[in-house]
């Protein structure tokens, strides 16, 4: 419980930093931190495999890509900050939390904090599920990735 609260605070703070830092690189670093903490949160949910994948995929690949692009483009100016628009957006987001809060707090899980079964979250079980009932989505995901690769190459390639 303590661990959760610490992690939650860290996650929320770093998430807030993502949107409140005016510098893109700072935002990106804050996001890496947030993702890292979320990965640890995953670990507390008996999902070690997913947690490690989170670090590997998000922190290790996606965010590096972000940083790479940021440095490649190297936008010079800090972005302007318009107070009214910021207020409006933040208010809307706050309203969203406010509206969702009661519903979320009243949600009753069917088996509240049931002890995880043996091997829950292990690579073996994840693999079996993935290649069992989810094999078709898995294959489709591979096609999606292929399409994304080709799309990215085509988009980012300089016209010759």
């Amino acid at each position: 419980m303590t661990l959760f609260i610490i992690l939650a605070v860290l996650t929320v703070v770093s998430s807030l930093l993502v949107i409140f830092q005016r510098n893109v690189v700072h935002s990106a670093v804050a996001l890496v931190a947030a993702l890292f903490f979320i990965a640890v949160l995953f670990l507390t949910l008996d999902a070690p495999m997913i947690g490690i994948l989170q670090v590997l995929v998000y922190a290790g690949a996606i965010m590096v890509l972000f940083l790479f692009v940021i440095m490649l483009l190297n936008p010079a100016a800090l972005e302007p900050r318009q107070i009214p628009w910021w207020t409006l957006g933040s208010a809307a987001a706050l309203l969203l939390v406010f509206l969702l809060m009661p519903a979320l707090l009243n949600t009753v899980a069917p088996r509240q904090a049931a002890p995880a079964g043996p091997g829950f979250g292990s690579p073996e079980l994840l693999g079996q599920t993935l290649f069992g009932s989810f094999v078709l989505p898995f294959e489709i995901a591979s096609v999606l990735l292929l399409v994304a690769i080709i799309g990215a190459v085509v988009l980012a390639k300089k016209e010759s």
Partner: protein
Amino acid sequence: MMIDIGIIAAKAFLVLFMVLNLAGVLGWIERKGSALIQDRIGANRASIFGFAGMGLVNTLIADPIKFLTKEDFIPPKGDRFLHTLAPCLALFPALVTFAVIPFGDVLVVAGREIVLQVANVNIGILYIFAMASLSVYGIVIGAWASNNKFSLLGGVRGAAQMVSYEIAMGLSVLGVLMIFGTLELQEIVRAQGGLLGGWLPAWGIFLQPVAFLLFFTAAVAETKRIPFDLPEGESELVAGYHVEYSGAKFLMFFTGEFAEIVTAGALVTTLFFGGWQVPYLMRDGFHLPWGGTLLLPHLVVVLLQVGAFAVKVIFFCWVQILLRWTLPRFRYDQVMRLGWKMLLPVALLNVVVTAVWIVLGERASLRP
């Protein structure tokens, strides 16, 4: 309970101590090795009361003092916070990866079984990759925070290079994982204790030679050293991503680099060269394939194993240093081409061939 925590703390301390010291020693080996190759003497000036210790003094004592007392320079238009954070990010992943690398079998002391591994995680290898993937941040963030075009270029190069070679490295390990059927490093090492055909140790190198070549190449590339030192490349980018670093921060980058060498060596040892396994050494002593048996006490066996692991790691560290002083630097496009057009396809092919081999093997073993 307290004892458990104490044991874990002791293991962690031991590992960190060993790694950091090894990194330091590697600095000496590098200097002396390069001097040997280039037919010169190498570091020999610093001395304590006339004792130069073949440069060991230089490396282990004088260098740290020098680094720690130098001015910590931060570029005026740089980013103070990130400039400081970056070296930590560079050193941190290199050190934490050792948490899952087994340096010995089980040590039994007073009826308590101590696994000679800081943390036995069931997804150890993935953990290593996750941590290794984080090591990019030190470079990228440091490069950006320096507000220097050379360092920025180095950072961009480093990011691209490391992401690229991470893929080839992961795919090459996949073959090993398929052979041994586990993600636990301790299990992988234990699986390499068997014998192939009754006499050949079942090490990964014999089962996955292609994977070894790929993995080793990619691992060298990940350490950003010659021939893959494009992010620093002194003749092109002055010193690349750490051009604006000095003092303690530079020391951290420096140590991180050598720690990575050690990590790479340890991983190669663990995955392909039997880890702590000594050929024919069982828990109770040597069982030679041609009939000889030499029983040894438990402690001796454990020490032999730990020693074997250390020797193998140091050997591969030495190989890497040898490479660094032997080969010329690649061009950047050559690096990229090698990563994407050579290593990646070959690694994929290796995975496919391994899969077919395993399936055929299973078929064969199913036959009565």
